């Protein structure tokens, strides 16, 4: 079985592309890139902690998230800031997560807290998807993970469960080439990641992860199938992590420069979609710059909002662990409060 790479930009299919959608995707992608650049600076200044950048993966993040309704479930991993923005999580909440506060969530948004252990969240996506269908809702679940996650047992268990129960879930794998320092070829002997769908009896698709319109199209089709009760899909978005794994990582230790330069020069998702908008006369260079300026202003507002949030208090570490605080936690909290100024 063949797993062709679906592309739209630069093919004859882009003649029929929806320019309004392309504009919306581009503007969210430039927001994500601005956020990324700013967050790395903030980390270098010591204003936030370790940060996982999205550089190079903007088309995958934004194109996929735009395929959801707000009533659908988003089940993210730790590099999915862009998808969370699209789904409605405010920028400052993502920054607060990087500042060591609670997970990037908003009570108004149907997303689970960012999962840190690899592939564990895929099972939660299957569970919320089963619940949705059982409760008579037509909402689907979209979960995010990387190429390294396909080596974990929970990846296997989640696809297997989803296949057996025909759960309305989309497994969105961003194959960015690297799991920290280990290249994709060392994760699996499979030629593609999409082909793993076959073993679980679910749909699979492979898409150019740097082509926002292609990602949007492929994920939208998967969402439609899930909503119609036709079961789960594994989507492999072939993209590239143009930055480090996190701000604690130095990719020059393991990654060939020519590989990185090739992606950066020829396949940058923003250049690809921006070029399309220019070519179609939807935007001028000046307009693209204006959008970038507006994005930076939004990021600044997010930084201001995050930094205005008061310092944490001891109680915040205790009060949500259990719905009702057990007496032993009460005593532990009191002991810490007694020695904490302004507790």
């Amino acid at each position, binding site marked *: 079985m063949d797993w062709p790479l679906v592309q739209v930009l630069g093919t004859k299919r882009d003649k029929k592309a929806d320019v309004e959608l392309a504009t919306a995707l581009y503007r969210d992608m430039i927001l994500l890139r601005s956020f990324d650049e700013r967050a790395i600076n903030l980390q270098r200044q010591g204003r936030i902690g370790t940060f996982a950048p999205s550089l190079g993966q903007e088309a995958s993040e934004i194109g996929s998230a735009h395929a959801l309704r707000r009533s659908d479930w988003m089940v993210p991993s730790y590099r999915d800031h862009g998808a969370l923005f699209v789904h409605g999580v405010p920028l400052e909440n993502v920054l607060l997560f990087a500042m060591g506060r609670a997970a990037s969530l908003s009570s108004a948004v149907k997303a689970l807290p960012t999962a840190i252990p690899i592939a564990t969240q895929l099972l939660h996506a299957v569970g919320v998807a089963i*619940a949705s269908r059982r409760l008579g809702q037509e909402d689907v679940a979209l979960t995010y993970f990387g190429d390294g996650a396909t080596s974990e047992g929970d990846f296997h268990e989640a696809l297997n469960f989803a296949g057996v129960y025909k759960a309305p879930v989309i497994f969105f794998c961003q194959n960015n080439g690297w799991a920290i320092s280990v290249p994709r070829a060392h994760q699996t002997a499979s030629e593609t990641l999409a082909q793993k769908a076959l073993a679980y009896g679910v749909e699979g698709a492979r898409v150019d992860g740097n082509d926002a319109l292609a990602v949007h199209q492929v994920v939208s089709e998967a969402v439609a199938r899930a909503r119609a009760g036709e079961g789960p899909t594994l989507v492999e978005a072939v993209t590239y992590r143009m930055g480090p794994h996190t701000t604690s990582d130095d990719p020059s230790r393991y990654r060939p420069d020519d590989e990185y330069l090739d992606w950066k020069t020829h396949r940058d998702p923003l250049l690809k979609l921006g070029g399309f908008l220019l070519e179609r006369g939807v935007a001028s260079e000046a307009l693209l710059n204006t959008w970038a300026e507006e994005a930076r202003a939004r990021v600044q507002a997010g930084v201001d909002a995050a930094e205005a949030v008061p310092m944490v208090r001891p109680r915040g570490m205790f009060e949500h662990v259990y719905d009702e605080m057990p007496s032993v936690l009460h005593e532990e909290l009191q002991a810490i409060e007694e020695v904490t100024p302004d507790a």
Partner: protein
Amino acid sequence: MPEMNLIQAVTSTLDAMLASDERVVVLGEDVGKNGGVFRATDGLFDKYGGDRVMDTPLAESGIIGTSIGMAIGGLRPIAEIQFMGFLYPGLDQLISHAGRMAARSSGQVRVPLVVRVPFGGGIRAPEQHADSAEAYLVHTPGLKVVVPSTPYDAKGLLYAALQDPDPVVFMEPIRLYRMGRQEVPPDAYVVPIGSARVAREGTDVTVVTWGNMVALAEKTAEALKGEVSVEILDLRSLFPLDREAIWRSVNKTGRALVLQEAPLTAGLAGEISALIQDGAFWSLQAPVARVAGPDVPYPPYAWEDMYLPTPERLQAAIRRTLED
């Protein structure tokens, strides 16, 4: 009032829960058509169908991880893991997610999940089928852990677990499943999580224990009758612990022995011993004693009777606390 054994209390309670709340889903390996390897879900599949009593693929992380999602999504999953020795693939989901979801989401996401897990030895089961792994769970913040030793408590604690907004591991003592019968009220009732039970009143020494070991303690206390007056505290909840009940009893008797089936080192008995120093130190007339399984893997069953605490070991340990 109907009389039933512990496993019948579990089955009839699950039945009532499925009947009264559409959100309740029972899932696990062989829980459907087969009614579970111990028959705890016997008849429920025929009554409620495969959508409510779900036979799952054979994968414990999958069962618990999917149940976490189902709970977040608005269902009330009651998952079964066949034996505690098979829980380990699911520990990552319990430790990394079920236990910390509420804390790391600032209370925005709660996981009202019940995991039922038969545990303990004494039934000549194959290897890996007899573990008592409660220490891992009690050491995991965000989880609650309960263990009934009577049919009455099985029903009341199962209702408490289902109604709890937080994840609860419901440990079922295999050896006691069919050991004794008791009257169990037909209507729903709750045994509050965090409350211990004085299983036997006494004045000389307190035996603090839970699960299968409650029966052993009762047998031993009966054998010592006339010589030593033994009070038995059946904890019922391993987290949160009923510290007041422990302190009340030990302050009364002045002597304490903690009895567990699990290996000694870093087991729950150590934690309880430390708690006794916290709240009953000035009443103690002897060092707090521990009787536990040895620090060896639960053995193949030819050694089982040597591994498990026996009435003889318990009697000797109780007498030692009285010598001081």
